[in-house]
């Protein structure tokens, strides 16, 4: 898709393509974007039309999740507390994309500071699912996924701390990839839980996602957790799955899983079998502890990461200045939404003297066990195949009052972040008119294998071509 779009833009007009997209966004009621970079996007498009530049994504429009810093474009993480904050620098991934010629359309909606599974905790109001506007698009990268699914952007970046790329990709019927921890520099990604999150692509096809990852991956000295890797994710994309072994974790199928989702996953496994792969059951025995460990680690890190937002240097300023403690307390009370406050409080508690050992340290130990589960499994299989989410998109408002039931929705995605391995979500059918996502998980830095299996599956199925009707 991006390949064709690039040719279309090169032989036609970037300005026309961008204008059409902007018009589409403006008449849409999905609320996928927080900020449209209309002027700068059109200006860059006109410049491109005058003297086109080279680059692997030359002229291609892209939407960026609002958790990623973009120089000169307001970046708020969908939080009041960052209203008006315009970063003076570009995230590493933005530098890479710009170097390959993209045109940034705008910043997409998300759960406030990535804390959510539905994009309902945004200070800008929820994004709607293009397949059913009464339903959530998933989260936290809901704006990016909805925009790509609804044709409001040909591709987008998201970030994934516990499923925040894969969940909305699943709910919106597109491709979303969370790379191995350390593959993509986090420099410029506004931290929610540093030790878990990665930036990754949301796109219409596996090839598009692979191209985007190829552009954004690679070592960056500014991120000490970033790895030195070779890239080349488009190489061998079409080599097929013959002889490969797919593992199906027994803990991921069963209780709590929607039956039509389960059926779609087994159908997908049959497709892979038909393509020459085999499957076997594997066990990831510590899965049941993953959610608890994940939320303790994520909230603890978040409580520290979000402490800097005090309105003193940037972002929200309210009322008149009082003494320092009163002023920043008032700003934080007004600027953060209830879910963010809940996580800051819980994280602060988990890190306090006397509780650190009982919660945070214990969660780190569980994390090690979960990682070992995966390493053991990958001794016998090439990839793991699971559902991305236990159910399709739920209704707006259905779960937001019950945080625990929302946290439970992340049950298949968070172990992947704890283990640091790569995983993709692909469209694998529909349940009641709503897209279902298939999660394919690879070993550390085995992105190529994940893409290869995904591409083989995509080639053999029609699901990725399905598109919702425009919602006006």
């Amino acid at each position, binding site marked *: 898709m991006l390949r064709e779009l690039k040719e279309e833009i090169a032989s036609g007009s970037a300005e026309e393509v961008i204008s059409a997209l902007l018009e589409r966004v403006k008449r849409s009621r999905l609320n996928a974007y927080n900020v449209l970079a209309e002027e700068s996007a059109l200006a860059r498009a006109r410049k491109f039309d005058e003297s086109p530049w080279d680059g692997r994504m030359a002229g291609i429009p892209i939407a960026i999740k609002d958790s*990623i*810093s973009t120089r000169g474009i307001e*970046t708020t*993480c969908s939080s009041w507390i*960052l209203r008006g*904050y315009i*970063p*003076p*620098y570009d*995230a590493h991934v933005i530098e890479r994309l710009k170097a390959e010629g993209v045109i940034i359309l705008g910043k997409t909606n998300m759960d406030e500071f990535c804390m959510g599974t539905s994009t309902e905790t945004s200070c800008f109001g929820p994004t709607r699912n293009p397949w059913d506007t009464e339903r959530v698009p998933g989260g936290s990268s809901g704006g990016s996924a909805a925009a790509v699914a609804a044709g409001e952007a040909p591709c987008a970046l998201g970030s994934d701390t516990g499923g925040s790329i894969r969940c909305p990709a699943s709910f919106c019927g597109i491709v979303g990839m969370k790379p191995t921890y350390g593959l993509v520099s*986090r*420099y*410029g*990604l*506004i*931290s929610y839980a*540093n*030790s878990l999150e990665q930036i990754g692509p949301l796109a219409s096809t596996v090839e598009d996602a692979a191209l985007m990852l190829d552009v954004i991956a690679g070592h960056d*000295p*500014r*991120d*000490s*957790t970033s790895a030195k890797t070779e890239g080349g994710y488009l190489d061998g994309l079409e080599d097929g799955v013959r002889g490969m072994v797919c593992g199906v974790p027994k803990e991921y199928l069963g209780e709590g899983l929607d039956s039509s989702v389960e059926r779609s996953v087994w159908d997908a496994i049959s497709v892979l079998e038909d393509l020459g792969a085999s499957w076997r059951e594997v066990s990831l025995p510590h899965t049941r502890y993953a959610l608890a460990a994940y939320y303790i680690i994520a909230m*603890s*890190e978040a*409580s*520290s990461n979000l*402490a*800097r*937002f*005090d309105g*003193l*240097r*940037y972002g929200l300023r309210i009322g008149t200045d009082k003494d*320092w*403690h009163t002023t*920043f307390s008032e700003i934080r009370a007004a600027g953060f939404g209830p879910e963010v406050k809940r996580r800051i409080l819980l994280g*602060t508690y988990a*890190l*306090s*003297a006397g509780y*650190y050992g009982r919660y*945070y340290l214990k969660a780190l130990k569980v994390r090690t066990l979960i990682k070992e589960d995966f390493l053991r499994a990958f001794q016998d299989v090439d990839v793991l195949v699971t559902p991305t989410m236990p159910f399709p998109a739920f209704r707006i408002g259905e779960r937001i009052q019950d945080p625990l039931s929302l946290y439970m929705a992340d049950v298949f995605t968070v172990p992947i972040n704890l283990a640091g391995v790569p995983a993709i979500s692909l469209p694998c059918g529909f349940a009641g008119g709503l897209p279902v996502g298939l999660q394919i998980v690879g070993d550390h830095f085995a992105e190529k294998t994940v893409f290869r299996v995904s591409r083989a599956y995509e080639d053999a199925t029609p699901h990725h071509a399905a598109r919702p009707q425009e919602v006006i």
Partner: protein
Amino acid sequence: MENEVIIGLEVHVQLNKLNSKLFCSCSTDYHDDDPNTHTCPVCLGLPGTLPMINKKAVEYAIRVALALGCVVQEETLFYRKNYYYPDLPKAFQITQYDYPLGLGGHMLIKGEDGERVVRINRVHMEEDPGRLVHAGTIDRAKYTMVDYNRCGMALLEVVTEPDLRSPKEARAFLDKLRSILDYLDVFDGDLEGAMRVDSNLSLVGGDRAEVKNISGHKGVEKALNYEITRQKNVRRRGMKVVQETRHYDELRGVTVSIRTKEEAHDYRYFPEPDLVPMRIADWVPRVQEELPELPDAKRDRFRTQYGITDDHAKSLTSEIKVANFYERVAGKAPPKLAAVWIADVLKGELNYRDLSIENFHEDQMVEILKMLELEAITEKGAVEVVRQILDEGGSPAEIVKARGLGKAEDDAVRVAVRAAVAECGPAVEDYRGGNEKAINFIVGQVMKKTRGRADPGEANRLVREAIEEL
């Protein structure tokens, strides 16, 4: 005995000889610049930024740890110390806390009664917060301004065991630490905020108070003396010293309570996820090998190699530049004479003018020492030469010539002696009558006749001889 004092120090040393800050590439050369001009997204803690460790800073830290006799850990590990304060833009400080780079060293200082071994608990790295400028005093300021130029500077925290027994010993410790840091070339102690001290002080049997914000080695005696007096007064009134944190107000010379034990922070330390541990075990042998000769070793060597007194050796080795200057001079002139003239004269004249040793050239000193050795110049004249070089410049030979400081030739002195003895009949009689002091009058006449060029000792001897011969 009941008022014996127990002191431990936490010394913050800014590694200000680095070119860049601890976690970003901002320049450290901000001391003459406007506030908030040496900042970047990283040291301002803007959303999305990540720390990137300055390897040179780690090497400097290893250097200091080794010089203080610490065991260096195999890898670096950093924690977050979480607290809200406007000088801390991330609302946490990245510090080594639980995993200090260096552990268990020691330092020898001159104590109240003989030499004292001060144990070093640890040496760890952390980032410097910004600088707060209060409009007025800390407890009464209407507003406060923040300068982030300092924010993110590499700091070393050197923590002693409670082994010091007086403010004077605390001062001696800091002087020695400063000297070692000077030798290691990691630190310029003259820059503002280069060394900041927190101190725990208690009287035997009492709770301790932590005194924060003592700037540098000079303020420490004053601050601690104040605190001792305060604690003794509390006791005298029959009350107990409470465990608390106090702020030293340099302007008023007093300590002010800023929080009690009950208000102590819970810093919620946890490992910094954005900095992966860096293995440094392999660096240590090389750094150890490249470690320069340190003050104590140099002092011992100077004593034995040049045969100079321990006081001179100590004085000459407190600053590396002075020590190097001395060695260069001692290679070309008599070492003992050089020690006297550099340690006792030159250093004093430099201190008086607040100048450093760079203002004097070794060849000038060698020339002066040669003239003294040949008795071509009196000691008094040599001091004059030193002073004039410092004040107006010029070479020793020119100065001696221009100011007629050359020692008068023997003949001229003898002529003057004979004349003076002949002219001072009554004084000669007094001397013969047993009044020793009368000789001084005659010598004074000799000096007058030779315009001060005669050596007073020599003139004294010649006058006595002349009187004997009468």
